[in-house]
């Protein structure tokens, strides 16, 4: 695939970035506004790419997408599914009911405690029932939920070892609530650790519709333009998974956008150790990279205030972007954001005669921005008089506040007192200070920085996994592990990875202690590059 044509999109809250790559080279890039329906924004970017490059769409071999949709939906409590929650575990587990420790507004956004049912059931570690599954309670709960839920999350005690109760419960739910209600089973999401797995499962159920929309949008967009390539979504570890899989497991894409940006930043800059600062129209993500990969969060990852056991890069998100509103009293800056004018920049910001002072305006007023804004089909400023009327000290104070905010965010993520290099990418990198930032040795904005995330999606590794059940009384453990690893590598190769680049990311062994012999389930995750 080393000379293959690949298209990547990075759909942010404000902008949709696109890039067309051949091998390691950027052929064309495009930026469009993210639209409500997502599709239109992707189509705009795609059309620009096709027009400018003049390539035959049929030649494109791979289309990949990084998106912040799932995270934004959870953080902003928007477009979430109403989730029917089943825990199969009573009389055990009642000391800590489902949704304990969740922020109240998020609880409300997914339908609240009325849709939560802790029913009798679940397994012991050795495969026995804790108590028999209470089918009647599940049926009754389903009848009560009918019409009130979009999706259902089922978490059974010890389901990663024996999934039987979860699967039986799912049958009942499907029979009563029908095929339109999506069901997430916890044993497909994460491993042992009930509370975190349950949280991850409920969050997955809550963002099903958001991911379905994003994937359908992408599918529609590429099909309409005659592209027959395989579709991939960037997942949390920076590798990609097939879009068909992503629609059922959106929780694995909560860090999709930032993970793509980190991959793009490392690729474009050649810097492998330092901080990546990805500045958009509304928010900025900061990641600390070691040997080219984002540092992984330890143990529990908090998403929208909820503890999960999803493996994720350690990221800090702050409300700072090009469109962030600078609040002030006289010439003193009182706050940056958190609100942003987003794609209303050209209507609301001072540079365009609008009523509000934004980060963009401060950059323009101080002469830091001199380029055309292609995405808005406009110059960076259209109302010079309005801008000149702003007091100089206010503009300078705003600039200082932006610098300090970025400095603080970088400092929070650093693990060393030594200054480190910083890679600034994303469209917003144009309008923030790049000098005099404490704790940073130098700031680099590599070529194509403004669409770094889109580049990241196209050079991302392909992730794959394989599972197998072995009996260690019969089979040597090392042989068994290498057998499953081989299978996982085959899967990665079949999905487009170069075999010699595939490496093992995770090895999980779960003993089936209820079976004779020493049986266990082995699950191995790998990822491999599409380019050498």
């Amino acid at each position, binding site marked *: 695939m080393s000379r293959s044509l690949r298209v990547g999109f990075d759909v942010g809250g404000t902008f949709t970035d696109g890039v067309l790559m051949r091998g390691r080279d950027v052929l064309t890039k495009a930026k469009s506004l993210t639209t409500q329906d997502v599709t239109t924004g992707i189509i705009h970017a795609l059309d620009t790419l096709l027009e400018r490059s003049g390539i035959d769409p049929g030649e494109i071999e791979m289309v990949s997408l990084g998106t912040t949709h799932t995270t934004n939906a959870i953080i902003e409590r928007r477009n979430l599914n109403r989730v029917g929650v089943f825990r199969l575990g009573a009389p055990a587990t009642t000391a800590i009911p489902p949704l304990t420790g969740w922020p109240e507004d998020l609880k409300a956004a997914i339908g609240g405690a009325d849709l939560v049912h802790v029913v009798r059931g679940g397994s012991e570690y050795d495969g026995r029932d804790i108590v028999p599954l209470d089918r009647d309670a599940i049926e009754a709960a389903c009848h009560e939920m009918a019409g009130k839920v979009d999706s259902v999350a089922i978490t059974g005690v*010890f389901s990663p070892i024996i999934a039987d109760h979860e699967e039986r419960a799912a049958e009942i739910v499907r029979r009563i609530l029908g095929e339109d209600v999506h069901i997430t089973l916890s044993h497909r999401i994460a491993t042992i650790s*009930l509370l975190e797995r349950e949280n991850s499962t409920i969050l997955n159920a809550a963002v099903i519709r958001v991911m379905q929309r994003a994937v359908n949008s992408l599918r529609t967009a590429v099909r309409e333009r005659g592209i027959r390539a395989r579709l991939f979504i960037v997942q949390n570890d920076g590798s990609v998974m097939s879009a068909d899989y992503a629609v059922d497991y959106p929780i694995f894409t909560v860090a999709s956008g930032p993970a793509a940006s980190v991959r793009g930043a490392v690729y474009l800059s050649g810097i492998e150790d330092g901080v990546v600062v990805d500045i958009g129209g509304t928010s900025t993500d900061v990641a600390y990279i070691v040997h080219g990969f984002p540092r992984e969060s330890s143990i529990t990852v908090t998403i929208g205030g909820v503890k999960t056991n999803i493996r994720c890069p350690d990221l800090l998100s702050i409300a700072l972007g090009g469109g962030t509103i600078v609040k002030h009293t006289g010439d003193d800056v009182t706050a940056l954001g958190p609100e942003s004018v987003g794609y209303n920049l050209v209507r609301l910001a001072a540079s365009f005669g609008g009523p509000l002072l934004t980060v963009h305006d401060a950059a323009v007023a101080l002469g830091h921005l001199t380029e055309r804004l292609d995405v808005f089909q406009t110059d960076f400023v259209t109302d010079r008089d309005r801008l000149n009327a702003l007091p100089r000290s206010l503009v300078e104070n705003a600039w200082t506040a932006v610098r300090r905010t970025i400095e603080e965010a970088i400092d929070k993520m650093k693990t060393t007192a030594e200054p480190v290099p910083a890679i600034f990418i994303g469209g917003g990198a144009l309008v923030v200070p790049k000098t005099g930032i404490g704790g940073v040795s130098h700031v680099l904005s590599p070529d194509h920085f403004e669409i770094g995330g889109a580049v990241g999606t196209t050079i991302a590794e392909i992730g794959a996994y394989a599972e197998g059940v072995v009996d260690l009384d019969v089979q040597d453990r090392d042989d068994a592990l290498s057998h499953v690893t081989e299978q996982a590598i085959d899967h990665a190769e079949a999905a487009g990875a170069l075999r010699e680049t595939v490496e093992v990311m995770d090895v999980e062994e779960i*003993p089936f202690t209820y079976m004779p012999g020493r049986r266990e389930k082995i699950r191995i995750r790998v990822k491999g590059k599409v380019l050498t």
Partner: protein
Amino acid sequence: MTRRVRGPRAVLEEWGVGEFRVIDKPAIQEITLGASILATGGGGDPEIGLLWTYKVLDEGKEILMVDPMQIPDEIQTASPACLGAAIVLTEKPPSHTVLNLAMRKLEAYLERPIQATIPIECGGVNSPVAYAAAGEFGIPVIDVDGMNRAFPELQMTSWVTHGVHASPTVSVDDRHNVTVIDAGDDDVLAETLARRAAMAYGGISWVATYPLMGSDVKRTSILGSQSIAWAIGRAVLRARREHLDPVAELLRSLETERGVRGYRVFRGKIVDIRRDFGSETNKGFTLGSIVMEGIDRDRGRSATLDFQNEWLNLRIDGEVRCLPPDLIAILDSETGEPIRTDIMKYGYRGTIVLIPAHERMRTPKGIEMFGPRHFGYDLDYVPVEGLNENREGA
């Protein structure tokens, strides 16, 4: 027997004790983190103990901790605890009724009310659980424990090595099965019986154990154990807030609070995990070993740790560097969060820290009961100081 609901303040007033520390949510968070670090890889999921204690505080119940030297000699105390495999607890949190049931049944067997709780060990579950139970029961918790670490077996306490006993112990489960274990002065038998009950229940039991009199608590406990955990937890949380090195802050707090030196000996990532849980041979523990490969200045070196719920021993490049009862903690280098045997995963990165066991755990009787030979190693106990002095950063 009817339950008093007057609350811990009234109890302390009755004893004439005016000094105590109020345990609020930040306090229990600090104590639980510190205890979880001292738990040497075991002790269970702190989230469960914490959320449970939060629930008790949210119900408006008060939790007070008292210095052991202030308590009357003749009061009855007991230790509410979870006994079993940590991995089972992580997956199967308890019913909200189990602690109450165990304590009530122990009171009935003793024919006396329990007037204070004593945490059995430092652990993510068993430390906060003693606070949650104290809150629910309206009695104080005493600033002691029986280990100042976590250990896999019931009899591995300074209490036993100083001549008091775990029996009678009451063991219950979520379905309200109740087992009374009274093995007299045979604490190993008490452990065997309690473990059998836990396995029969499904891997986890909830016990009320070590019914000690106030005078015994003073004579046989690790005094101030809760304060040590609290200081460590506070230091690590402060390090996180102020971007200091959590491991350095932990070692500093240990020197201040206990006057002992800990050792930072290895930094690496987990490259192999062998777990052997639940088969007939391992008596119901999470059992196995891991291999870590060195990173940074430890590149090229390799560390092996065995575990039985807790980390047992450490070998670096084949050389023994720590033996029980001394403490081993693997801490996430950035946050200081302990990496536990029940949740560790392939690829986790951490710093290995060694801490000398408390002197009440290092008596000849202690080395006999929970030293290397007890765990099946053909090795004499050498204190961690002897194995590591002048070797740090080797």
